[in-house]
């Protein structure tokens, strides 16, 4: 499958370029992982070895960091996050989470505080925050998202 091989080569060289651009920085691993995730939408499993080699770390150390932080993942993240911080819960975010799951299923995850607690409850859809949400407003926003 030549096309596939090309893709793998291209992504390997992108990973190496990213590692190279950060390797001089102290504590470079988090900036490297953030940039890889921004480029691919997730951390490709194949990226662990070149990251480890480039930063003089073991693969276990790199995997350990990826698995520790909620932000980093080996598969694409959720498209919808519902804030389940206490402030949003006081305004009914548990019901919102249920509505979102009914529409989006596994693509929905909780997030613990997006820092907009005076306009609770909040949801995040495709990296944008929406405050003062209600199940009805959420349903129409998500319907728009599905159509898009």
């Amino acid at each position: 499958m030549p096309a596939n091989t090309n893709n793998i080569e291209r992504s390997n060289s992108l990973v190496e370029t990213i590692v190279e651009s950060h390797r001089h920085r102290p504590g470079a691993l988090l900036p490297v992982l953030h940039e890889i995730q921004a480029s691919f939408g997730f951390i490709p499993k194949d990226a662990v070895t070149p990251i480890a080699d480039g930063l003089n770390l073991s693969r276990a150390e790199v995997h350990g960091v990826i698995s520790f932080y909620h932000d980093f993942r080996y598969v694409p993240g959720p498209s919808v996050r519902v804030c389940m911080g206490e402030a949003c819960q006081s305004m009914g975010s548990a019901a919102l989470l249920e509505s979102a799951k009914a529409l989006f299923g596994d693509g929905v995850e909780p997030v613990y505080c997006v820092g907009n607690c005076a306009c609770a409850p909040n949801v995040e859809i495709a990296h944008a925050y929406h405050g003062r949400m209600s199940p009805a407003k959420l349903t129409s926003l998500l319907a728009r998202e599905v159509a898009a």
Partner: protein
Amino acid sequence: MTISVYVPRDSGALAVGAEAVANAILAQAAERGIRVELIRNGSRGLYWLEPLVEVQTPQGRVAYGPVDRDAVPGLFAADFLRGGAHPLCQGLTEEIPYLKAQQRLTFRRVGLTDPLSLDDYRAHEGYRGLARALEMTPAEIVAAVTESGLRGRGGAAFPTGIKWNTVLEAPGDIKYIVCNADEGDSGTFSDRMVMEGDPYLLIEGMTLAGLAVGAEQGYLYLRSEYPHAEAILDEAIARAEAAGYLGDDLRGSGKRFHLEVRRAAGAYVCGEETALLESLEGKRGQVRAKPPLPAIQGLFQRPTVVNNVISLASVPAILDKGPAFYRDYGMGRSRGTLPIQLTGNIRRGGLVELGFGVSLKELLYDYGGGTASGRPIKAVQVGGPLGAYLPADQFDIPLDYEAFIAAQGTVGHGGIVVFDDTADMAHMARHAMAFCAVESCGKCTPCRIGSTRGVELLDRIIAERDKGADVAQVALLRELCDTLLNGSLCALGGMTPFPVLSALDHFPADFGLVAETAHA
């Protein structure tokens, strides 16, 4: 004549439609052939009125809010550009009682100025602290901070001057300033407001810390949930460098200070200072045992100041106006002001900066106006997810570090979350344990395993509560809390019992207990 119109770029305002409002104003103005200068300010912190649009008039800035996109044509029709009457008109911004009654020291510019304009910053007393500091010795700067009585605003309330002095006196050529901007507590957003609304204030505060202890490199550890703050800080840092306020020669003094933003990765525990340092070093955010203190061996084993955003942002005014000016606000050993965040089920949520000593009652009713739902307040949680749930009969407690410790609570980072009488406190207690289980770094056993056992216990208690409480399970829960309180390495495990025990003590009925057996 061009008319200045302000629409916040604060992410709270954006989340309720500020961008669409800004675009609608520009479109209407173009259609009507009116020249407006649109300024994207920070938020005034009157969040129930966001998006809050302000218009500059000869009498002062006039506020309209909450404005949505569809209201914009009506505002033009009402001649809002000259302060015209409209149902959404709130009068002069500065005269809105919620804002007028505050004592804004740290937040003096937030919402007032264009966050990225250095000219605006300097025109409103910015960089006067730095000018003073460049004529002082490091020890004099530290002494001023010590005399001000400033204590760490992240939650631990450790005296800032003492921490700085430890780093100043620690041997070594390389030292670091680390700003903890991992504002993970639910019910808090004051750090975010400063970073988005007055970024140079934080940059100046970190520069002052660098001058005070002899550090030439600063890191701003910013939570990844704040992308707008990151963009604004990156731009502000670049502009400050270009103007000689950061870099190798601070305003011709020959002194250096470099600053960079590092994005966190969604781990609540990295708000704990030693876990934060591990994370900055590129490792798993696991808590370190203390000692050694970060002030002696911190980032990359070097002496390091780790301070919260608000602590650092409080320093420029202390140097500019003198320590006594700051110390004169507050009560007891809690000096200065606290930016309080009113959140959750509250009618007028927002940012209230006041000297320590204000009571919860004043905040919840005079400022907050009671619940958003109109129902009675059942409980408030002060100080984030690790803070105690307080019932209405404790609302006379003043905001003061010592008074809250006496009530088995914490002021924390100044967040207050309001719950109405429909809240299920047993469910909230379970949430506290579940949150701890999700966020535990795994280093110490009480937190890592205890939190999971706590969820199981609370599930059993909740399942049985309609038949009356299982007293043995409640006793076991209390024992478990005792283990977490006394056996955990950091505040995550050590304080998770606060919301659990306070819910049990103050709201026994929610656990199926009658009042007397709550303490069994």
